[in-house]
């Protein structure tokens, strides 16, 4: 009898303790959660709602339900006969955004993977220095980096000066305000996002495995393909996602280096809230971008999970 009495006594005390503990934890979490809920999560909900409203005359919205914004994301109403056709302008911007983002991901991968591998296999002192050198531009104001690139690829910038002096070109090349400029800028800016996760993956390689492979008569290429690459693959996938996602949403680089003519999705969205004055369309485009990015994220998550478990 006494034993049973004690059991209830202790579990009650324990439960009360746990409740108290949970209350404290929620209390400690509440300031961060409140700020993020109001200034980051709630705005997403608002933007979703706004995408189903009608545009106001001078920006803002009229509170009546409409699917027009969503229709005009992909389709265009002919101004003469009112029939719907594909929104060529929008689609070409979608396409440019995806194309440039994929290209940026690919280039950063081709440069970033060997770079990360090289850095991670140096002696500790040099490794930390090189890592530091990769980190510094990453934490440098985006505008400064964009400005620096602009000065290099301008008509009278470094590259053209060198090319002209060498006699390789007669006329200065037009690089600024092209898709090349955007792609170059994004590669420059997002390269650390590829290098850092790959670096972390290379650092985890147990080089006794490589020794074992050489011991079992593997060639250098076989070792790279069958031992090293499978180990760093999760890092490469993570890096690709980290590069692709912000590339798709990029605004400042396209604005400055693309010169306002070569729009990306981010610029198109911004346009709707500025000169375009079509907030619902801007909201619908934002939601579309968000969905695109979340899909990429989910695919990558599914993919890496399978890789790691398998």
């Amino acid at each position, binding site marked *: 009898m006494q*034993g049973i009495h*004690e*059991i209830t006594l*202790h*579990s009650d*005390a*324990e439960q009360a303790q746990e409740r108290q503990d949970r209350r404290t934890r929620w209390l400690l979490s509440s300031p961060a959660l409140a700020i993020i809920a109001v200034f980051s999560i709630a705005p997403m909900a608002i933007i979703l709602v706004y995408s189903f409203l009608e545009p106001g005359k001078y920006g803002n919205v009229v509170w009546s339900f409409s699917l027009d914004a969503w229709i005009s994301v992909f389709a265009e109403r002919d101004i003469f006969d009112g029939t719907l056709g594909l929104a060529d302008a929008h689609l070409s911007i979608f396409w440019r955004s995806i194309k440039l983002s994929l290209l940026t991901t690919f280039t950063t991968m081709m440069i970033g993977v060997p770079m990360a591998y090289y850095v991670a296999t140096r002696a500790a002192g040099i490794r930390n220095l090189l890592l530091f050198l990769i980190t510094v531009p990453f934490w440098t104001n985006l505008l400064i980096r964009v400005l620096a690139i602009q000065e290099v690829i301008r008509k009278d910038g470094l590259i053209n000066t060198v090319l002209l002096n060498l006699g390789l070109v007669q006329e200065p090349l037009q690089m600024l305000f092209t898709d090349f400029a955007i792609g170059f800028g994004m590669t420059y800016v997002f390269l650390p996002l590829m290098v850092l996760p790959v670096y972390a993956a290379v650092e985890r390689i147990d080089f006794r495995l490589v020794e074992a492979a050489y011991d079992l008569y593997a060639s250098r290429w076989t070792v790279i393909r069958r031992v090293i690459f499978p180990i760093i693959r999760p890092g490469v996938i993570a890096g690709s996602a980290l590069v692709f996602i912000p590339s798709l949403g990029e605004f400042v680089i396209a604005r400055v280096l693309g010169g306002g003519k070569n729009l990306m999705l981010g610029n198109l969205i911004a346009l709707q809230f500025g000169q375009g004055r079509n907030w619902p369309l801007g909201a619908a485009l934002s939601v579309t971008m968000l969905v695109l990015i979340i899909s990429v994220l989910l695919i990558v998550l599914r993919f890496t999970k399978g890789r790691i478990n398998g």
Partner: protein
Amino acid sequence: MIELRNIRKTYGSGASAFTALHEVDFEISENEFFTLLGPSGCGKTTLLRVIAGFETPTAGAVLLGGEEISLLPPNKRPVNTVFQNYALFPHMTVAGNVAFGLESLGKPKDEVRARVEEMLELVQMLHLRDRPIAALSGGQQQRVALARALAPNPRILLLDEPLSALDLKLRKEMQVELKRLQHETGITFIFVTHDQEEAMAMSDRIAVMKGGRVHQIASPKALYDRPADDFVASFVGESNFFPARIMSNSDQGAVLSIPGLGEVTLKGETHDTGDVTALVRPEHIRTGDSATSGLILEGRLENAMFLGIATLATVRMAHGQEISLRIRNTHDAPPPTEVGSTITMSIPPKAIRLVRAVSA
């Protein structure tokens, strides 16, 4: 002084529930060096954490000097712990660590200083009092952890495998040191280890645990000589087990039959007839010229390992069973080494113990 009454500890609930301690019930007296011994996962550390207050028992009670303390938080218990990895505060000096408990208790500064000095003296660390923790060796950290836990003069000191991170030589030194400290301070020590030799060397009493249950509590000698069951016997020392049978009891004693070995009378003992497990320690089996009384056996030497002080031999009997022998190496009687040679052995009846069979 400390009583554990029907302690049960269950984690989780429903189908995933796991019971780490099953109705543990015993007491430890004042000034005792008491050891909880068992393989990893046996519940010894959980029991220690229940005593320290880091875990609340699901059922049962912990009584200290007759008062229930089961629900007191660790900072309200006059019990201190030496952690397995020492858990010394890395941002404080040696003296800072030792002073921590006294300061938390709000002791006056002079008293704290004097006590810290006394404790560091006790563990021979006074000369390193202002060193940062990171600058200490493993053995030195061990001493600081001891001084820190002893400084508030707890009624019980809990030690969670404190020697496991040290190398063999240092471990032996610390065993002696711990015995000395316990003797000098007169504090009850509860020591957790999975190392039976360590437990035997230091303890007044040992509780052997497995699967959350206490199998036996006894002095090291009693544990070795009279293990309660085959698990205790095999965990504490080496053992030969024989399935056997009590045939009858006469006024001479109980008659034990061991299939393949023969029959022997256990003088002065009385047992229920039926199947039993007989235990014989390898060092109690005689060989060569001295193998003259009791059960006399012959077998083939399978292998012999020279260990210096003794030779560990495995002999296979005609019916297939293997028997382990530990033969003392003496200068006049070289141990058998030739594999395949025939060995004559004898088991004196006094060397046979009947144990409960609990292991599969």
